[in-house]
């Protein structure tokens, strides 16, 4: 099912009457059958958007459509959604079976059918042998799968996941991430999933929606958004290690960082911000490039070597010292103290103006 949000707005009013626009005139279309990651830092409005979709919060303005049905004023129980809570919210006094069965009982599904569907769903999430356990007798990952089973058993039109992996340890997170992807593929259900972890969102989403301060910054396929960020915030938010940000100057169609020539540009003269991905640096072995730095630290983790380089200048204050990271092939055997010349892959460099808007 396709979900459409039109000018969706949610304003929270605090006790001192100050207003927070948690979700600000969001327009968004979520295509049928896709897995969408709502991504952003804490307080960006992604969870609020999810709860508006669920109907647990009431929007201040705007409309929500599920296909052609307007559901803006439909109570949550009538929207036909499944929701997986961040803490799973499994009913502690019910067994796994009772938890999964609960929505079916409420929908007055015939007993035999409900039993079969509960079993089938438990099997889908791989918990058919744990049906008689209580939630507290399960591991975090298992609880999470019970929550997914409970959300899916009523065959909802939309599955919503609120930070589904944040309570799991690193290994389980990877595993469960694959699991969610698999279940979504098998059920072909339109899924919206909220996370602050860009890696998580990029790895399982068909499309990601990056939000900040209640506003949608960019939407698209993860790799497209990564390769072509619309603004500085998106460029900084996606990618690990983070994109390197430099103050740069354009002079007669040439771009300079720290008075070193980096590349050509068509932009008019002036001060700009240059973002270069850590993997966008090429080590110039012939040392012809003007763009050169002394390496401060070298971290080698398996395949990749990360060079940490302090930007010259402002050396009197350690706290204000700016550094950047470069990922290079570990076979180059670069050591700290080496002077390294770089050329930049043009497709890994983005130019922004002072407001963070993308120029090139």
């Amino acid at each position: 099912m396709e979900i459409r949000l039109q000018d969706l707005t949610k304003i929270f009013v605090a006790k001192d009457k100050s207003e927070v626009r948690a979700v600000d005139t969001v327009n968004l279309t979520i295509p049928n059958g896709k897995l969408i990651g709502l991504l952003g830092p804490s307080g960006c409005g992604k969870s609020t958007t999810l709860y508006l979709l669920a109907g647990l919060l009431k929007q201040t303005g705007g409309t929500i459509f599920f296909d052609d049905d307007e559901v803006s004023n439909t109570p949550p129980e009538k929207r036909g959604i499944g929701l997986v809570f961040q803490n799973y919210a499994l009913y502690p006094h019910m067994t796994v079976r009772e938890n999964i069965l609960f929505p079916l009982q409420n929908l007055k599904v015939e007993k035999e059918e409900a039993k079969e569907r509960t079993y089938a769903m438990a099997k889908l999430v791989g918990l058919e042998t744990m049906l008689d356990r209580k939630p507290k007798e399960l591991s975090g990952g298992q609880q999470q799968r019970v929550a997914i089973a409970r959300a899916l058993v009523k065959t909802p039109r939309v599955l919503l996941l609120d930070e589904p992996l944040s309570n799991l340890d690193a290994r389980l997170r990877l595993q469960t991430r694959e699991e969610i992807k698999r279940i979504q593929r098998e059920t072909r259900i339109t899924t919206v999933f909220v996370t602050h972890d860009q890696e998580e969102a990029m790895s399982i989403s068909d499309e990601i929606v990056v939000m900040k301060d209640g506003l949608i910054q960019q939407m698209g396929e993860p790799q497209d958004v990564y390769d072509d960020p619309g603004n500085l915030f998106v460029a900084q938010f996606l990618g690990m290690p983070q994109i390197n940000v430099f103050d740069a100057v354009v002079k007669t169609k040439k771009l300079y960082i720290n008075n070193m020539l980096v590349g050509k540009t068509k932009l008019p003269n002036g001060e700009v911000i240059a973002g270069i991905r850590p993997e966008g640096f090429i080590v110039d072995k012939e040392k012809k490039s003007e763009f050169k730095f002394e390496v401060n630290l070298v971290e080698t983790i398996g395949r990749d070597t990360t060079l940490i380089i302090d930007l010259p200048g402002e050396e009197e204050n350690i706290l204000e010292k700016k550094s950047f990271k470069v990922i290079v092939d570990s076979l180059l055997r670069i050591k700290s103290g080496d002077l390294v010349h770089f050329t930049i892959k043009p497709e890994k460099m983005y130019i922004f103006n002072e407001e963070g808007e993308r120029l090139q």
Partner: protein
Amino acid sequence: MEKRNNWSAWLYLAPLLILMAIFIFYPLVNAFYISILENYQPLANNGAGAASGYTLMNFAVVIKNELFWQAIKNTFVIAFVSVPISIFISLIISVALNSIPKLRSLYQTVFFLPYVTNAIAIGMAFAFLFHEDFGFFNVMLGWIGIDPVEWIGSTSSWWNQMSALLIYTIWGGLAFKILVFTSGLQNIDKQYYDAAKIDSASKWTIFKRITVPLLSPFILYISITSMIGALKAYRTVIGLFGTRLGAQPNSMITIVAFVYEYRSKYYEISHMSYAAAGAIILFFITVVFSLIQGVISRKRVHY
């Protein structure tokens, strides 16, 4: 672990232990003792007391007394009717209170007032509310076309008296239960309610399958304490009917009232022992019901 006796701990506990020994353990043991004394006269020998031996006949005397069975009947009706009803009503009120965040504290105070008000004063007010000609209950019944009921008048039936007593008992017991349940409700994670809404649960289903089970430790606590309280009913009877203990003498007598009737005539030979025997019987009834509740709770209470 250190095995050595921790004298300072005993020292800190001493004041409480001494008070408990004097005012709780000694009277308890003494009641057992008095209940098996033969021809006990507490005032004999200049107040040292005298008895001619040991006997279980005191219990027989109590059991043979018709008034005792009247007291058992009244007490059990009070306990088994008022406790479940008042728990149910206070649950509903607590859930309702919990859903109106704005006026909750005001209403909590209002509902708690009966708890800090003297039972005798409330009883007097209720005695007037139940008055056949001017009482509020009959006025209300009049609105829906029902003839006045003689609730507590001298010729009223046992059921009418008991109904009045039950209404008063239930109302009087609400305050504390509401207090406990509302604080219990605030401990329940709101996410369960959101989840239940998403799971299409109706309000009644949420109450029955989410609220009550998650509140069950509190419900167990309340049902045990209020069952014990109801088995000890006395103040309510005095409050509503005075020392006649009923519209007709002793028609609303309870076990505690029965014990008191004997105790108040302690100067007569063996009456103190009869009172003690009655109290011991009540003690065992209370223990049995508390154990039964404990057993049931093991299956039904979710911590």
